[in-house]
Protein backbone atom coordinates (compact mmCIF):
# COMPACT_ATOMS: atom_id res chain seq x y z
CA UNK A 1 0.00 0.00 0.00
CA UNK A 2 2.26 2.70 -1.21
CA UNK A 3 1.36 6.35 -0.69
CA UNK A 4 2.94 7.27 -4.02
CA UNK A 5 1.67 10.02 -6.27
CA UNK A 6 1.97 8.06 -9.50
CA UNK A 7 -0.55 9.36 -11.97
CA UNK A 8 -2.76 6.93 -13.86
CA UNK A 9 -3.97 7.67 -17.32
CA UNK A 10 -6.95 5.31 -17.19
CA UNK A 11 -8.14 4.39 -13.73
CA UNK A 12 -9.27 0.75 -13.43
CA UNK A 13 -12.97 0.20 -12.88
CA UNK A 14 -12.50 -1.65 -9.62
CA UNK A 15 -12.13 0.46 -6.53
CA UNK A 16 -9.89 -1.06 -3.91
CA UNK A 17 -8.42 0.23 -0.71
CA UNK A 18 -4.99 0.85 -2.23
CA UNK A 19 -6.47 2.96 -5.00
CA UNK A 20 -8.49 4.98 -2.56
CA UNK A 21 -5.44 5.70 -0.46
CA UNK A 22 -3.55 6.79 -3.53
CA UNK A 23 -6.30 9.17 -4.59
CA UNK A 24 -6.46 10.66 -1.16
CA UNK A 25 -2.72 11.24 -1.05
CA UNK A 26 -2.80 12.89 -4.49
CA UNK A 27 -5.48 15.23 -3.20
CA UNK A 28 -3.43 15.91 -0.11
CA UNK A 29 -0.39 16.89 -2.13
CA UNK A 30 -2.41 19.14 -4.42
CA UNK A 31 -4.06 20.73 -1.43
CA UNK A 32 -0.65 21.29 0.16
CA UNK A 33 0.62 22.99 -3.02
CA UNK A 34 -2.43 25.27 -3.15
CA UNK A 35 -2.07 26.18 0.52
CA UNK A 36 1.65 26.68 -0.08
CA UNK A 37 0.90 29.22 -2.81
CA UNK A 38 -1.48 31.01 -0.45
CA UNK A 39 1.21 31.00 2.23
CA UNK A 40 3.64 32.47 -0.30
CA UNK A 41 1.58 35.63 -0.75
CA UNK A 42 1.34 36.05 3.02
CA UNK A 43 5.12 35.68 3.13
CA UNK A 44 5.57 38.22 0.31
CA UNK A 45 3.32 40.67 2.16
CA UNK A 46 5.42 40.29 5.31
CA UNK A 47 8.71 40.73 3.44
CA UNK A 48 7.17 43.69 1.57
CA UNK A 49 6.46 45.61 4.79
CA UNK A 50 9.94 44.92 6.16
CA UNK A 51 11.52 45.81 2.81
CA UNK A 52 9.83 49.22 2.88
CA UNK A 53 11.23 50.03 6.31
CA UNK A 54 14.80 48.71 6.00
CA UNK A 55 16.23 51.34 3.60
CA UNK A 56 14.37 54.07 5.51
CA UNK A 57 15.93 53.19 8.87
CA UNK A 58 18.80 55.74 8.82
CA UNK A 59 16.28 58.56 8.38
CA UNK A 60 13.74 57.10 10.83
CA UNK A 61 16.34 56.91 13.59
CA UNK A 62 17.68 60.39 12.83
CA UNK A 63 14.44 62.36 12.40
CA UNK A 64 11.83 60.21 14.14
CA UNK A 65 8.26 61.47 13.98
CA UNK A 66 9.49 65.06 13.66
CA UNK A 67 9.95 64.15 9.98
CA UNK A 68 6.20 64.58 9.47
CA UNK A 69 6.07 68.20 10.62
CA UNK A 70 9.40 69.55 9.39
CA UNK A 71 9.11 71.72 6.31
CA UNK A 72 12.83 71.75 5.54
CA UNK A 73 14.06 69.65 2.64
CA UNK A 74 17.71 70.61 2.37
CA UNK A 75 20.08 67.99 0.95
CA UNK A 76 23.08 70.31 1.36
CA UNK A 77 22.69 70.58 5.15
CA UNK A 78 21.26 67.04 5.31
CA UNK A 79 18.03 68.22 6.95
CA UNK A 80 14.90 66.51 5.73
CA UNK A 81 11.19 66.82 6.45
CA UNK A 82 8.13 65.42 4.74
CA UNK A 83 5.71 68.31 5.13
CA UNK A 84 6.18 69.97 1.70
CA UNK A 85 5.76 66.60 -0.04
CA UNK A 86 2.73 65.65 2.07
CA UNK A 87 1.22 69.06 1.34
CA UNK A 88 1.82 68.70 -2.40
CA UNK A 89 0.37 65.19 -2.44
CA UNK A 90 -2.80 66.29 -0.65
CA UNK A 91 -3.25 69.46 -2.73
CA UNK A 92 -2.76 67.78 -6.12
CA UNK A 93 -5.03 64.86 -5.17
CA UNK A 94 -7.69 67.29 -3.95
CA UNK A 95 -7.57 69.21 -7.26
CA UNK A 96 -7.81 65.90 -9.13
CA UNK A 97 -10.93 64.87 -7.22
CA UNK A 98 -12.59 68.28 -7.55
CA UNK A 99 -12.26 67.93 -11.32
CA UNK A 100 -12.79 64.18 -11.73
CA UNK A 101 -15.69 63.72 -9.29
CA UNK A 102 -18.41 65.70 -11.10
CA UNK A 103 -17.24 64.72 -14.58
CA UNK A 104 -16.82 61.08 -13.61
CA UNK A 105 -20.22 60.94 -11.91
CA UNK A 106 -21.90 62.55 -14.91
CA UNK A 107 -20.23 60.14 -17.30
CA UNK A 108 -21.19 57.19 -15.07
CA UNK A 109 -24.83 58.37 -15.03
CA UNK A 110 -24.77 58.50 -18.82
CA UNK A 111 -23.28 55.03 -19.17
CA UNK A 112 -25.56 53.44 -16.56
CA UNK A 113 -28.77 55.39 -16.96
CA UNK A 114 -29.34 57.46 -20.03
CA UNK A 115 -31.73 55.80 -22.43
CA UNK A 116 -31.11 58.41 -25.11
CA UNK A 117 -28.03 58.17 -27.33
CA UNK A 118 -27.74 54.54 -26.29
CA UNK A 119 -25.65 53.75 -29.36
CA UNK A 120 -22.86 55.93 -27.94
CA UNK A 121 -22.49 53.84 -24.80
CA UNK A 122 -20.24 51.15 -26.27
CA UNK A 123 -17.70 53.45 -27.94
CA UNK A 124 -17.59 55.82 -24.94
CA UNK A 125 -17.09 52.97 -22.47
CA UNK A 126 -14.33 51.68 -24.70
CA UNK A 127 -12.63 55.10 -24.91
CA UNK A 128 -12.64 55.50 -21.14
CA UNK A 129 -11.31 51.95 -20.63
CA UNK A 130 -8.61 52.72 -23.16
CA UNK A 131 -7.58 55.75 -21.11
CA UNK A 132 -7.09 53.46 -18.10
CA UNK A 133 -4.66 51.36 -20.13
CA UNK A 134 -2.39 54.17 -21.31
CA UNK A 135 0.90 54.03 -19.35
CA UNK A 136 1.37 56.93 -16.96
CA UNK A 137 4.72 57.87 -18.50
CA UNK A 138 2.97 58.45 -21.85
CA UNK A 139 0.39 60.69 -20.18
CA UNK A 140 3.31 62.46 -18.51
CA UNK A 141 5.08 62.97 -21.84
CA UNK A 142 1.95 64.44 -23.39
CA UNK A 143 1.34 66.68 -20.39
CA UNK A 144 4.97 67.82 -20.36
CA UNK A 145 4.95 68.97 -23.99
CA UNK A 146 1.36 70.09 -24.58
CA UNK A 147 -0.50 70.60 -21.31
CA UNK A 148 2.11 72.75 -19.55
CA UNK A 149 2.28 75.38 -22.34
CA UNK A 150 -1.52 75.38 -22.50
CA UNK A 151 -1.76 75.96 -18.75
CA UNK A 152 0.95 78.64 -18.81
CA UNK A 153 -0.44 80.64 -21.73
CA UNK A 154 -4.19 80.13 -21.44
CA UNK A 155 -5.66 78.45 -18.39
CA UNK A 156 -3.55 80.01 -15.65
CA UNK A 157 -3.85 83.63 -16.96
CA UNK A 158 -7.60 83.11 -17.38
CA UNK A 159 -8.01 81.86 -13.81
CA UNK A 160 -5.83 84.71 -12.56
CA UNK A 161 -7.98 87.19 -14.46
CA UNK A 162 -11.36 85.86 -13.31
CA UNK A 163 -10.65 84.37 -9.87
CA UNK A 164 -7.44 86.26 -9.09
CA UNK A 165 -8.90 87.69 -5.86
CA UNK A 166 -8.46 84.21 -4.35
CA UNK A 167 -4.94 83.47 -3.07
CA UNK A 168 -4.92 80.15 -4.98
CA UNK A 169 -4.84 81.84 -8.35
CA UNK A 170 -2.23 84.52 -7.74
CA UNK A 171 1.41 84.70 -8.70
CA UNK A 172 3.24 84.04 -11.92
CA UNK A 173 2.52 80.91 -13.89
CA UNK A 174 5.25 78.73 -15.36
CA UNK A 175 2.92 75.92 -16.38
CA UNK A 176 4.66 73.55 -13.97
CA UNK A 177 3.00 73.26 -10.59
CA UNK A 178 0.21 71.99 -8.36
CA UNK A 179 -2.62 72.90 -10.74
CA UNK A 180 -1.12 71.20 -13.80
CA UNK A 181 -0.29 68.11 -11.74
CA UNK A 182 -3.86 68.09 -10.42
CA UNK A 183 -5.28 68.22 -13.94
CA UNK A 184 -3.03 65.34 -15.04
CA UNK A 185 -4.12 63.31 -12.00
CA UNK A 186 -7.76 64.07 -12.79
CA UNK A 187 -7.31 62.56 -16.26
CA UNK A 188 -5.66 59.51 -14.73
CA UNK A 189 -8.28 58.78 -12.05
CA UNK A 190 -11.25 59.47 -14.31
CA UNK A 191 -11.48 55.90 -15.68
CA UNK A 192 -11.58 54.43 -12.14
CA UNK A 193 -14.15 56.97 -11.00
CA UNK A 194 -16.37 56.30 -14.03
CA UNK A 195 -16.11 52.49 -13.95
CA UNK A 196 -16.78 52.14 -10.23
CA UNK A 197 -19.61 54.68 -10.06
CA UNK A 198 -21.23 53.12 -13.12
CA UNK A 199 -21.27 49.71 -11.41
CA UNK A 200 -22.69 51.21 -8.22
CA UNK A 201 -25.43 53.11 -10.10
CA UNK A 202 -26.34 50.01 -12.08
CA UNK A 203 -26.79 48.17 -8.79
CA UNK A 204 -29.64 50.50 -7.77
CA UNK A 205 -32.81 48.35 -7.99
CA UNK A 206 -34.88 48.97 -11.10
CA UNK A 207 -38.09 48.98 -9.10
CA UNK A 208 -36.99 52.10 -7.19
CA UNK A 209 -36.33 53.94 -10.44
CA UNK A 210 -39.63 52.86 -11.95
CA UNK A 211 -41.56 53.79 -8.81
CA UNK A 212 -40.10 57.27 -8.89
CA UNK A 213 -40.83 57.74 -12.59
CA UNK A 214 -44.35 56.34 -12.13
CA UNK A 215 -45.00 58.96 -9.46
CA UNK A 216 -44.33 61.57 -12.11
CA UNK A 217 -40.75 62.52 -11.29
CA UNK A 218 -38.56 63.58 -14.20
CA UNK A 219 -35.29 61.79 -14.97
CA UNK A 220 -33.32 64.54 -13.26
CA UNK A 221 -35.50 64.34 -10.14
CA UNK A 222 -35.16 60.56 -10.07
CA UNK A 223 -31.38 60.86 -10.25
CA UNK A 224 -31.26 63.48 -7.53
CA UNK A 225 -33.71 62.05 -5.02
CA UNK A 226 -33.63 58.28 -5.65
CA UNK A 227 -30.48 57.09 -7.39
CA UNK A 228 -27.82 59.29 -5.82
CA UNK A 229 -29.03 58.84 -2.22
CA UNK A 230 -29.19 55.07 -2.70
CA UNK A 231 -25.75 54.90 -4.33
CA UNK A 232 -24.11 57.42 -1.99
CA UNK A 233 -22.00 54.99 0.04
CA UNK A 234 -20.77 53.17 -3.05
CA UNK A 235 -19.90 56.42 -4.80
CA UNK A 236 -17.95 57.52 -1.72
CA UNK A 237 -16.00 54.29 -2.03
CA UNK A 238 -15.32 55.02 -5.70
CA UNK A 239 -14.04 58.50 -4.79
CA UNK A 240 -11.74 57.06 -2.14
CA UNK A 241 -10.33 54.43 -4.50
CA UNK A 242 -9.67 57.22 -7.02
CA UNK A 243 -7.98 59.16 -4.24
CA UNK A 244 -5.78 56.16 -3.49
CA UNK A 245 -4.65 56.09 -7.10
CA UNK A 246 -4.04 59.85 -7.19
CA UNK A 247 -1.96 59.83 -4.01
CA UNK A 248 0.51 57.28 -5.35
CA UNK A 249 0.80 58.33 -8.97
CA UNK A 250 4.45 58.99 -9.64
CA UNK A 251 5.87 59.51 -13.07
CA UNK A 252 3.33 61.78 -14.77
CA UNK A 253 3.28 64.07 -11.72
CA UNK A 254 7.07 64.18 -11.51
CA UNK A 255 7.18 65.45 -15.09
CA UNK A 256 4.84 68.42 -14.58
CA UNK A 257 4.89 69.55 -10.95
CA UNK A 258 8.16 71.49 -11.15
CA UNK A 259 9.87 69.57 -8.34
CA UNK A 260 10.49 72.20 -5.69
CA UNK A 261 10.01 71.48 -1.98
CA UNK A 262 7.85 74.42 -0.97
CA UNK A 263 4.47 75.10 0.59
CA UNK A 264 2.56 77.88 -1.14
CA UNK A 265 -1.07 78.90 -1.37
CA UNK A 266 -0.70 79.65 -5.08
CA UNK A 267 -1.65 76.64 -7.17
CA UNK A 268 0.46 78.01 -10.04
CA UNK A 269 3.65 77.48 -8.04
CA UNK A 270 6.01 74.54 -8.37
CA UNK A 271 5.80 71.87 -5.71
CA UNK A 272 6.55 68.27 -4.89
CA UNK A 273 4.57 65.17 -4.01
CA UNK A 274 5.69 62.18 -1.93
CA UNK A 275 6.34 59.84 -4.88
CA UNK A 276 7.77 62.55 -7.13
CA UNK A 277 10.50 63.42 -4.60
CA UNK A 278 11.54 59.77 -4.55
CA UNK A 279 11.49 59.39 -8.33
CA UNK A 280 13.23 62.69 -8.99
CA UNK A 281 16.01 62.60 -6.41
CA UNK A 282 16.85 58.90 -6.18
CA UNK A 283 19.68 59.02 -8.73
CA UNK A 284 21.30 62.06 -7.14
CA UNK A 285 20.85 61.06 -3.50
CA UNK A 286 24.16 60.45 -1.75
CA UNK A 287 24.61 59.29 1.81
CA UNK A 288 22.53 57.11 4.10
CA UNK A 289 20.45 59.92 5.54
CA UNK A 290 19.48 61.44 2.18
CA UNK A 291 18.59 58.05 0.63
CA UNK A 292 16.92 57.00 3.87
CA UNK A 293 14.77 60.13 3.86
CA UNK A 294 13.54 59.30 0.36
CA UNK A 295 12.53 55.83 1.49
CA UNK A 296 10.98 57.28 4.66
CA UNK A 297 8.73 59.29 2.32
CA UNK A 298 7.91 55.96 0.66
CA UNK A 299 6.83 54.53 4.02
CA UNK A 300 4.60 57.57 4.65
CA UNK A 301 3.07 57.23 1.19
CA UNK A 302 2.32 53.53 1.58
CA UNK A 303 0.73 53.99 5.01
CA UNK A 304 -1.54 56.77 3.70
CA UNK A 305 -2.62 54.81 0.60
CA UNK A 306 -3.28 51.62 2.59
CA UNK A 307 -5.50 53.57 5.01
CA UNK A 308 -7.46 55.20 2.17
CA UNK A 309 -7.84 51.92 0.27
CA UNK A 310 -9.00 49.89 3.25
CA UNK A 311 -11.70 52.45 4.08
CA UNK A 312 -12.76 52.53 0.42
CA UNK A 313 -12.99 48.73 0.13
CA UNK A 314 -15.06 48.51 3.30
CA UNK A 315 -17.49 51.12 1.95
CA UNK A 316 -17.80 49.44 -1.45
CA UNK A 317 -18.27 46.01 0.17
CA UNK A 318 -20.89 47.30 2.56
CA UNK A 319 -22.79 48.86 -0.30
CA UNK A 320 -22.79 46.03 -2.78
CA UNK A 321 -23.14 43.34 -0.10
CA UNK A 322 -20.41 41.33 -1.80
CA UNK A 323 -16.86 42.14 -2.69
CA UNK A 324 -16.17 43.91 -5.96
CA UNK A 325 -14.21 42.01 -8.55
CA UNK A 326 -11.24 44.22 -9.26
CA UNK A 327 -11.16 47.99 -9.51
Amino acid at each position, binding site marked *: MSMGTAERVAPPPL*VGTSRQRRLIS*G*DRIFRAI*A*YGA*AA*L*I*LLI*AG*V*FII*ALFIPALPAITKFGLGFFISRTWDPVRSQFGALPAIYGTLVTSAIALVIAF*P*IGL*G*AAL*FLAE*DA*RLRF*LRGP*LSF*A*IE*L*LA*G*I*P*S*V*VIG*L*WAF*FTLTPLMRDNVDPFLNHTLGFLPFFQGSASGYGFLTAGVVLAIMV*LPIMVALSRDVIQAVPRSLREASLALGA*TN*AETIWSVILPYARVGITGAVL*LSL*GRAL*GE*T*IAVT*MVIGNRPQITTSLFASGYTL*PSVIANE*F*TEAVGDVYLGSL*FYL*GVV*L*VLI*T*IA*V*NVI*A*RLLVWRFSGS*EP*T*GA
Partner: protein
Amino acid sequence: MSLPLIRALVDRLVAGLIVLCVSVAAIPVLVLLLFVLINGLPGMLTPGFFTDPPYPQGVPGGGVLNAIIGTLEIVGIGSLLAVPVGALIGIFLSEYGRNPIGNTVRFISDVFTGLPSIAFGIFGYTVVVLTTHHFSALSASIALAVLMLPVILRATETALVLVPNSLREAGLALGAPRWRVTLEIVVPAALGGIVTGALLAMARAAGETAPLLFTAFGNDIVQTNPLQPMGALSLTIFRNALVPYPNLQQQAWAAALLLVALVAATNILARIYVRRSQR
Protein backbone atom coordinates in the same frame (compact mmCIF):
# COMPACT_ATOMS: atom_id res chain seq x y z
CA MET B 1 -50.11 65.97 -19.28
CA SER B 2 -47.49 68.65 -19.27
CA LEU B 3 -44.80 69.39 -16.74
CA PRO B 4 -44.36 72.81 -15.24
CA LEU B 5 -41.86 74.61 -17.43
CA ILE B 6 -39.19 74.85 -14.74
CA ARG B 7 -39.14 71.11 -14.06
CA ALA B 8 -38.92 70.32 -17.75
CA LEU B 9 -36.09 72.81 -18.13
CA VAL B 10 -34.13 71.38 -15.22
CA ASP B 11 -34.58 67.90 -16.65
CA ARG B 12 -33.24 69.03 -20.03
CA LEU B 13 -30.37 70.87 -18.35
CA VAL B 14 -29.32 67.79 -16.37
CA ALA B 15 -29.51 65.60 -19.46
CA GLY B 16 -27.30 68.10 -21.29
CA LEU B 17 -24.80 68.24 -18.43
CA ILE B 18 -24.55 64.45 -18.37
CA VAL B 19 -23.80 64.31 -22.09
CA LEU B 20 -21.25 67.09 -21.60
CA CYS B 21 -19.55 65.12 -18.80
CA VAL B 22 -19.22 61.96 -20.83
CA SER B 23 -17.81 63.92 -23.78
CA VAL B 24 -15.26 65.64 -21.57
CA ALA B 25 -14.29 62.28 -20.10
CA ALA B 26 -13.76 60.77 -23.54
CA ILE B 27 -11.82 63.69 -25.04
CA PRO B 28 -8.45 63.20 -23.27
CA VAL B 29 -7.98 59.71 -24.69
CA LEU B 30 -8.57 60.87 -28.26
CA VAL B 31 -6.28 63.89 -27.88
CA LEU B 32 -3.60 61.77 -26.25
CA LEU B 33 -3.62 59.04 -28.88
CA LEU B 34 -3.61 61.61 -31.67
CA PHE B 35 -0.62 63.46 -30.19
CA VAL B 36 1.34 60.27 -29.60
CA LEU B 37 0.65 59.13 -33.15
CA ILE B 38 1.55 62.44 -34.81
CA ASN B 39 4.66 63.07 -32.73
CA GLY B 40 5.80 59.47 -32.58
CA LEU B 41 5.58 58.40 -36.22
CA PRO B 42 8.48 60.50 -37.59
CA GLY B 43 10.82 59.16 -34.91
CA MET B 44 9.68 55.63 -35.48
CA LEU B 45 10.37 55.91 -39.21
CA THR B 46 13.93 57.14 -38.64
CA PRO B 47 16.39 54.50 -39.80
CA GLY B 48 17.94 52.66 -36.89
CA PHE B 49 15.12 53.29 -34.41
CA PHE B 50 14.44 49.59 -33.97
CA THR B 51 17.96 48.33 -34.61
CA ASP B 52 20.45 50.74 -32.97
CA PRO B 53 21.30 51.45 -29.34
CA PRO B 54 21.03 55.13 -28.28
CA TYR B 55 23.91 57.39 -29.30
CA PRO B 56 25.49 59.79 -26.79
CA GLN B 57 23.58 63.02 -26.08
CA GLY B 58 24.05 65.57 -28.83
CA VAL B 59 24.92 63.00 -31.49
CA PRO B 60 22.07 62.71 -33.99
CA GLY B 61 20.52 59.34 -34.80
CA GLY B 62 20.43 56.26 -32.64
CA GLY B 63 17.60 53.96 -31.63
CA VAL B 64 16.00 52.22 -28.71
CA LEU B 65 17.04 48.61 -29.25
CA ASN B 66 18.31 48.45 -25.65
CA ALA B 67 14.88 49.52 -24.36
CA ILE B 68 12.86 47.17 -26.59
CA ILE B 69 14.91 44.17 -25.49
CA GLY B 70 14.79 45.41 -21.89
CA THR B 71 11.01 45.82 -21.73
CA LEU B 72 10.41 42.41 -23.33
CA GLU B 73 12.92 40.63 -21.11
CA ILE B 74 11.95 42.31 -17.83
CA VAL B 75 8.22 41.73 -18.39
CA GLY B 76 8.88 38.22 -19.75
CA ILE B 77 10.81 37.08 -16.69
CA GLY B 78 8.32 38.82 -14.42
CA SER B 79 5.45 36.92 -16.09
CA LEU B 80 7.28 33.60 -15.78
CA LEU B 81 7.45 34.25 -12.04
CA ALA B 82 3.98 35.71 -11.54
CA VAL B 83 1.68 33.68 -13.81
CA PRO B 84 2.18 30.18 -12.31
CA VAL B 85 2.13 31.46 -8.72
CA GLY B 86 -0.83 33.75 -9.36
CA ALA B 87 -2.80 30.98 -11.09
CA LEU B 88 -2.09 28.59 -8.20
CA ILE B 89 -3.23 31.14 -5.62
CA GLY B 90 -6.35 31.70 -7.74
CA ILE B 91 -6.99 27.93 -7.71
CA PHE B 92 -6.54 27.93 -3.95
CA LEU B 93 -9.05 30.77 -3.54
CA SER B 94 -11.68 29.18 -5.73
CA GLU B 95 -11.32 25.53 -4.63
CA TYR B 96 -10.11 25.76 -1.03
CA GLY B 97 -10.51 29.40 -0.10
CA ARG B 98 -13.95 29.68 1.50
CA ASN B 99 -12.39 30.24 4.92
CA PRO B 100 -10.51 32.87 6.93
CA ILE B 101 -7.22 32.03 5.19
CA GLY B 102 -8.84 32.65 1.80
CA ASN B 103 -10.31 35.93 3.01
CA THR B 104 -6.92 37.03 4.33
CA VAL B 105 -5.35 36.27 0.95
CA ARG B 106 -8.10 38.25 -0.82
CA PHE B 107 -7.61 41.17 1.54
CA ILE B 108 -3.84 41.23 1.02
CA SER B 109 -4.29 41.01 -2.73
CA ASP B 110 -6.68 43.98 -2.63
CA VAL B 111 -4.22 45.98 -0.55
CA PHE B 112 -1.49 45.18 -3.09
CA THR B 113 -3.78 46.34 -5.92
CA GLY B 114 -4.15 49.72 -4.25
CA LEU B 115 -0.47 50.27 -3.49
CA PRO B 116 1.40 52.92 -5.50
CA SER B 117 3.60 51.26 -8.12
CA ILE B 118 6.67 53.01 -6.74
CA ALA B 119 6.33 50.89 -3.57
CA PHE B 120 6.98 47.75 -5.63
CA GLY B 121 10.19 49.38 -6.83
CA ILE B 122 11.29 49.92 -3.24
CA PHE B 123 10.54 46.24 -2.55
CA GLY B 124 12.69 45.12 -5.50
CA TYR B 125 15.42 47.55 -4.45
CA THR B 126 15.65 46.25 -0.88
CA VAL B 127 15.22 42.56 -1.61
CA VAL B 128 17.48 42.24 -4.67
CA VAL B 129 19.52 45.39 -5.31
CA LEU B 130 20.67 45.88 -1.71
CA THR B 131 21.57 42.20 -1.28
CA THR B 132 23.39 41.81 -4.62
CA HIS B 133 24.86 45.34 -4.47
CA HIS B 134 23.95 46.31 -7.99
CA PHE B 135 20.98 47.21 -10.15
CA SER B 136 19.63 44.43 -12.33
CA ALA B 137 16.82 43.49 -14.69
CA LEU B 138 16.02 40.58 -12.38
CA SER B 139 15.20 42.94 -9.50
CA ALA B 140 12.80 44.77 -11.83
CA SER B 141 11.20 41.49 -12.89
CA ILE B 142 10.65 40.52 -9.25
CA ALA B 143 9.14 43.92 -8.45
CA LEU B 144 6.81 43.68 -11.46
CA ALA B 145 5.93 40.06 -10.64
CA VAL B 146 4.57 41.13 -7.25
CA LEU B 147 2.72 43.99 -8.96
CA MET B 148 1.14 41.53 -11.45
CA LEU B 149 0.25 38.91 -8.85
CA PRO B 150 -3.06 40.39 -7.58
CA VAL B 151 -4.40 40.92 -11.12
CA ILE B 152 -3.64 37.33 -12.13
CA LEU B 153 -4.93 35.65 -8.98
CA ARG B 154 -8.19 37.61 -8.97
CA ALA B 155 -8.79 36.88 -12.67
CA THR B 156 -8.08 33.20 -12.07
CA GLU B 157 -10.41 33.03 -9.07
CA THR B 158 -13.22 34.81 -10.94
CA ALA B 159 -12.83 32.49 -13.94
CA LEU B 160 -12.76 29.32 -11.82
CA VAL B 161 -15.76 30.31 -9.71
CA LEU B 162 -17.78 30.73 -12.91
CA VAL B 163 -17.20 27.09 -13.90
CA PRO B 164 -20.51 25.31 -13.11
CA ASN B 165 -20.42 22.99 -10.13
CA SER B 166 -22.13 20.29 -12.17
CA LEU B 167 -18.87 19.89 -14.13
CA ARG B 168 -16.95 19.30 -10.91
CA GLU B 169 -19.59 16.88 -9.64
CA ALA B 170 -19.60 14.99 -12.94
CA GLY B 171 -15.84 14.55 -12.70
CA LEU B 172 -15.98 13.41 -9.08
CA ALA B 173 -18.88 11.05 -9.83
CA LEU B 174 -16.75 9.39 -12.49
CA GLY B 175 -14.26 8.58 -9.76
CA ALA B 176 -11.62 11.17 -10.54
CA PRO B 177 -9.82 12.63 -7.52
CA ARG B 178 -10.32 16.29 -6.75
CA TRP B 179 -6.91 17.38 -7.99
CA ARG B 180 -7.51 15.81 -11.38
CA VAL B 181 -10.98 17.33 -11.57
CA THR B 182 -9.42 20.72 -10.85
CA LEU B 183 -6.48 20.48 -13.24
CA GLU B 184 -8.13 18.57 -16.10
CA ILE B 185 -11.72 19.82 -16.04
CA VAL B 186 -12.08 23.08 -14.10
CA VAL B 187 -8.87 24.84 -15.19
CA PRO B 188 -9.27 24.06 -18.92
CA ALA B 189 -12.87 25.28 -18.75
CA ALA B 190 -11.69 28.54 -17.22
CA LEU B 191 -8.52 28.94 -19.28
CA GLY B 192 -9.86 31.93 -21.22
CA GLY B 193 -10.29 34.00 -18.08
CA ILE B 194 -6.90 33.00 -16.71
CA VAL B 195 -5.04 33.85 -19.94
CA THR B 196 -6.89 37.16 -20.18
CA GLY B 197 -5.90 38.05 -16.62
CA ALA B 198 -2.28 37.20 -17.35
CA LEU B 199 -2.25 39.29 -20.54
CA LEU B 200 -3.83 42.30 -18.80
CA ALA B 201 -1.26 42.02 -16.01
CA MET B 202 1.54 41.92 -18.59
CA ALA B 203 0.16 44.99 -20.35
CA ARG B 204 0.06 46.88 -17.07
CA ALA B 205 3.59 45.79 -16.15
CA ALA B 206 5.01 46.81 -19.54
CA GLY B 207 3.79 50.37 -19.03
CA GLU B 208 5.21 50.85 -15.54
CA THR B 209 8.09 53.26 -14.98
CA ALA B 210 8.30 53.98 -11.27
CA PRO B 211 9.20 50.43 -10.17
CA LEU B 212 12.08 50.35 -12.68
CA LEU B 213 13.81 53.49 -11.43
CA PHE B 214 15.53 51.74 -8.53
CA THR B 215 15.72 48.26 -9.99
CA ALA B 216 16.51 48.00 -13.72
CA PHE B 217 17.86 51.57 -13.49
CA GLY B 218 18.34 51.95 -17.25
CA ASN B 219 21.25 51.17 -19.55
CA ASP B 220 22.23 52.73 -22.87
CA ILE B 221 24.11 49.61 -23.91
CA VAL B 222 22.19 46.66 -25.35
CA GLN B 223 22.12 44.25 -22.44
CA THR B 224 20.57 40.79 -22.31
CA ASN B 225 22.04 39.49 -19.03
CA PRO B 226 19.25 39.73 -16.44
CA LEU B 227 21.78 40.27 -13.67
CA GLN B 228 22.91 43.59 -15.19
CA PRO B 229 21.20 47.00 -15.31
CA MET B 230 18.86 47.22 -18.28
CA GLY B 231 16.96 49.84 -20.26
CA ALA B 232 13.22 49.86 -20.81
CA LEU B 233 10.89 51.80 -23.11
CA SER B 234 9.22 53.58 -20.19
CA LEU B 235 12.60 54.67 -18.81
CA THR B 236 13.63 55.94 -22.26
CA ILE B 237 10.47 58.05 -22.46
CA PHE B 238 10.90 59.46 -18.95
CA ARG B 239 14.60 60.34 -19.30
CA ASN B 240 14.57 61.56 -22.92
CA ALA B 241 11.58 63.85 -22.37
CA LEU B 242 13.53 65.85 -19.80
CA VAL B 243 16.68 66.52 -21.86
CA PRO B 244 16.96 69.50 -24.21
CA TYR B 245 17.92 67.60 -27.37
CA PRO B 246 15.22 67.51 -30.08
CA ASN B 247 16.35 64.17 -31.49
CA LEU B 248 16.14 62.53 -28.05
CA GLN B 249 12.72 64.09 -27.46
CA GLN B 250 11.60 62.73 -30.80
CA GLN B 251 12.89 59.35 -29.68
CA ALA B 252 10.80 59.67 -26.51
CA TRP B 253 7.64 60.22 -28.58
CA ALA B 254 8.47 57.30 -30.84
CA ALA B 255 9.14 55.09 -27.83
CA ALA B 256 5.78 56.22 -26.40
CA LEU B 257 4.03 55.23 -29.62
CA LEU B 258 5.76 51.86 -29.56
CA LEU B 259 4.84 51.30 -25.89
CA VAL B 260 1.19 52.28 -26.44
CA ALA B 261 1.06 49.95 -29.46
CA LEU B 262 2.54 47.12 -27.39
CA VAL B 263 0.11 47.66 -24.51
CA ALA B 264 -2.86 48.03 -26.88
CA ALA B 265 -1.89 44.88 -28.80
CA THR B 266 -1.72 42.90 -25.56
CA ASN B 267 -5.12 44.24 -24.50
CA ILE B 268 -6.70 43.43 -27.85
CA LEU B 269 -5.18 39.95 -27.77
CA ALA B 270 -6.78 39.45 -24.36
CA ARG B 271 -10.18 40.52 -25.69
CA ILE B 272 -9.94 38.28 -28.74
CA TYR B 273 -8.95 35.38 -26.53
CA VAL B 274 -11.93 35.94 -24.27
CA ARG B 275 -14.29 36.00 -27.25
CA ARG B 276 -12.84 32.86 -28.80
CA SER B 277 -12.91 30.87 -25.58
CA GLN B 278 -16.47 31.93 -24.83
CA ARG B 279 -17.71 30.47 -28.07
